[in-house]
């Protein structure tokens, strides 16, 4: 039960794009669950709910480095390339990314519809 208290949730993470919610128990770059991993962005983290292994954690999301929106790590909401970009910002600045990333962005533009993705990608 001691470990229970250690990882008790700090609050609810909610993605501002897809509304995914999950309780997080740490925010920062050095998740307390393990010694050997650092995160390259300020992340909202929870203990991995799918395993009993106490070392495991799950990164839920972080803020977009451009607009500051809180977004989940889901590929429909954001991408990470050195920094976190929410998908709307990434789309807007697609030209600044290397072609490999641009290709990905191009794929995501098309058919799938997301709650608050940017309009006008199709006419």
């Amino acid at each position, binding site marked *: 039960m001691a470990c229970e208290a250690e990882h008790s949730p700090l609050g609810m993470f909610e993605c501002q794009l897809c509304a*995914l919610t999950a309780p997080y128990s740490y925010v920062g770059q050095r998740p307390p669950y393990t*010694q*050997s991993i650092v*995160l*390259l962005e300020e992340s909202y983290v929870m203990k991995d*709910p799918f395993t009993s292994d106490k070392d495991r954690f*799950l990164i839920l999301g972080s803020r977009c480095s451009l607009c500051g929106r809180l977004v989940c790590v889901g590929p429909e909401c954001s991408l990470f390339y050195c920094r976190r970009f929410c998908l709307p910002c990434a789309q807007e600045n697609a030209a600044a990314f290397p072609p490999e990333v641009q290709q990905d962005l191009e794929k995501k533009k098309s058919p799938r519809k997301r709650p608050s993705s940017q309009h006008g990608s199709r006419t």
Partner: protein
Amino acid sequence: MSLPRTREGRGPRDQPPTPSWEEARERWNWHHPEKRRLFEDAFFQAEGYIRRGSEECQKFWSFFERMQRFQSLRATGKQEEEAGRLRHCIPALADLPPTYDPRYRINLSILGPDAQDARGPAGSLPPERVSEFRGALLHYLDFGQKQAFARLARLQRERAALPISQYRDRILQTLKEHQVVVVAGDTGCGKSTQVPQYLLAAGFSHVACTQPRRIACISLAKRVGLESLSQYGSQVGYQIRFESTRSAATKIVFLTVGLLLRHVQREPTLPQYRVLIVDEVHERHLHNDFLLGVLQRLLPRRPDLKVILMSATVNTSLFSAYFGQAPVVQVPGRLFPITVVYQPQEAEPTASTLEKLDPRPFIRVLEAIDSKYPPEERGDLLVFLSGLAEIGAVLEAAQAHARRSGRWVVLPLHSTLSVAAQDKVFDVAPPGVRKCILSTNIAETSVTIDGIRFVVDSGKVKEMSYDPQAKLQRLQEFWISQASAEQRKGRAGRTGPGVCFRLYAESDYDAFAPYPVPEIRRVALDALVLQMKSMSVGDPRTFPFIEPPPAASLETAILYLRDQGALDGSEALTPIGSLLAQLPVDIVIGKMLVLGSVLHLAEPVLTIAAALSVQSPFTRSTRSNPKCAWRALESDHGDPFTLFNVFNNWVQVKSDRSTKSRRWCRREGIEEHRLYEMANLRRQFKELLEDHGLLAGTQAPKPGDSYSRLRQHRERQELYQLKRQHEEGAGRRRKVLRLQEDQDGGSSDEDWGGDTSQGAGDVDIQDVKFKLRHDLEQLQEAASSAQVRTRDQMTLLKLVLARGLYPQFAIPDPFNSSRKDSDQIFHTQAKQGAVLHPTCVFANSPEVLHPQEPEATEGKGSQDNRDPMSSKHQLLAFVSLLETSKPYLVNCVRVPALQSLLLFSRSLDTNGDCSRLVADGWLELQLADGESAVRLLAATLRLRAQWESAMDGQLAQARRRRRAAEEVVALSKELLQFMASKVPASWVPAAPWPEGQEPSPDTALLAQSNADLYSDCLRSFWTCPHCELHVPLTPLERIAHENTCPQAPRDAPPGAEEAAPEPLRKVSDLQRPYHCKACQKDFLFTPTDVLRHQRQHV
């Protein structure tokens, strides 16, 4: 080039300091375990994210291999592209690196050992390889994150897609405004999993959610834990009979209705809960109905307690009205359209089909599906049948069809299958093949199988019905209700449009009752009434049930409890009654436990009581086979002793080498999980008896030396680890069924735990759990101390069982000895002509029940209705009478007739000289010798009083156990002598009393109240051989006098081998306050004393 080759395989220290990239790639063999080990040493430390030797570590290496293959393909396939393309200049993004690298997409980094640091663990590794490894590790971790996140997102999407999620706010809002809310939604709307989570998310705690079935508690707790992302925390827990995952942090607990009722029993206002969810109220289980009544009364006293009733969308107004028009939130189910096809069967007049179900209509449906629907179109078939025999009949035919067509896998589903065998219905059929699941009504509500497109509804259900007059359970076939028919139909439309074939006419459907008969109207209410009494809810007759039970059932139950001594004359709970109320078992079994611990036979009785409380461990296929292996363990004293032997042998095998037990069970034809259940139940009984001071507490385990303590600790740790691994792995993957899966489908144990011949690889999780829960050494000790070593022990043990079972006795038909083995019949008080269940030991060796050798009876016995005089008449005590095609006696013990009746009967009538006895107005015995009869009766009276007082003593002063111990030793001894008495007797079956000699109330020897033994009419002069008293006395008064005569030596009953020791002199039970009118004084007199006293005034 030649130099390095010779060095291949050596340690890295021998590597040339700066090999070229190509060279190194050539020589560095990642498959080499030695190489891998070096990296594992450096990166996978004990406290690292991935630990050496773990499953995770293996997964990493296979990921690593895949990645290497992929990269070498890419490297040869295309050239590195020049990344110097012109990009728009955006100031905020100006710092992005100009060249693309997939690593930039990974948002984490490893704090591994530094390859540059020559002294560190990675210092000796080639830097190129280190960076290769690091890169792979990063990708692996990233991959793991993506997978877990995708799983989380999918979980949430699925939750949001459930019909009930639209009603979340409405439910919470209604609950805020009302004390009781009814949530009505059909299976599949998600109410059972979602409502608890809505409460959790809304900040509720102290939530209890009741389920009618144990299995649902576990699976729901798991599911809700998973969905609410606290699977491995302790916010969500469950509590069932043997297991609890509940802790102080638990906010919501799933528990059985029975368990919640026990909480009410302890704390009537349920202070530990703030919200109660009562699920599946529409199923109208006995306990659920009772719980609703309890809650209805409790709510005014607990205005802060919220109650959510969850029901299918049937008859919701009943529940709403019962709770003062509580609001109903109706959630529509998510059902696809279902086509109903009525296929009434032509009446088949042949009598032979009455015995066995005709499978042809079912096979016709299979054929119709084969011809009408192409095999590429998926969709499985669920067939509802009334019972096991019907499943068996269709199984056979369906398997034959499956073999012919190659398009079906046939699987049975019913509650007596092991969990593992039941789980098979969730596996998937190979492409082009459909599952055909033959199920009882278990699949109507309790088990939900995805992918069902076709349903066949036989329209029948077999249910236990109860005849309160005969106290007889009958397994009878009924038409189902319209509600059930709709449930069954609905199973076809959960994943797409479906078809429901009803094997009855639409007019039949219209004639069905709208709802099933609630359980309270069709079962014995003994246990319920007992529980009601112990919860002091007042007179059961006036309890405000949602629908009251039949008055006759209540009266029968009350009478039964009085008969069993659980209630006294004023229907108040007796000490033994209140103990029985706390034992979660049948009253009969509970009594055995109490009686057994009173006579210091607790260990064997614990095992037997547990064995009689679980389903038969013998596999179906071997049950009626007299030659199968377990028959060697049969006891000719009766079936409970066979079970006892089986259990003890199993414990022996387990303590020998526990992994062997599974194989042993298979060989013997025994379903091992029943034995696990027995072990659990046995332990629970033991704890209950200890709690009530009837059994000395278990000795604390011997401390042992520190080494063995350490070893034990480590063993337990390993077991926990195994259990955890198993739980995490469970349900992760569905297997694909083999086409011939169904070959052994009929017997569950064959499938149990998969193929054991695979050997060490697979973990026997039952064994692991067993070892975690039980101290095997202790159990083995108990098992060996429970061995019945002596005849005496066996005799006493049988007495305990028989007394517990009385009046469930059957008398062998007098003509049995001249009948074939298979034609042996028996008569119970209410039922003539019962037969032995085929599993019964006496079914194969009925001769042990015959009073004499068959040849001796031949001449005389067949002429006369009357049995010969014999001291060897026996009765069968049975645990249950089950009526299926015939009335079957199940679980029988043979006991000596005369002594049993003398000791157990509620009333005993005699004629004047006590040569004829009628027990409970049912069985009549003629005794050969009047004088010894009187002596036997005298001993009977004394023993009964002694036994009662020993019991009362134990129960009332259980804490002062030692005191009662001496009394018990004496009692045991006397009981044994009594049992050894050889008084020839013969049955007088159903013969009227001779004219003028009908038993009058005056001669009621053991009237319930023990009140008046005083009678004028049968008195004759008699001289006491001890005190010389000479008075006219009835035989009963003689007995009474002899029992109290201060000068009388304590004789053993006639025929006993040795003289009984002087028992403790006690105040006679026959003493009554007596007021003499002549001398105006008050006395405490036995009837004899009264006579003697009166003589003074003559």
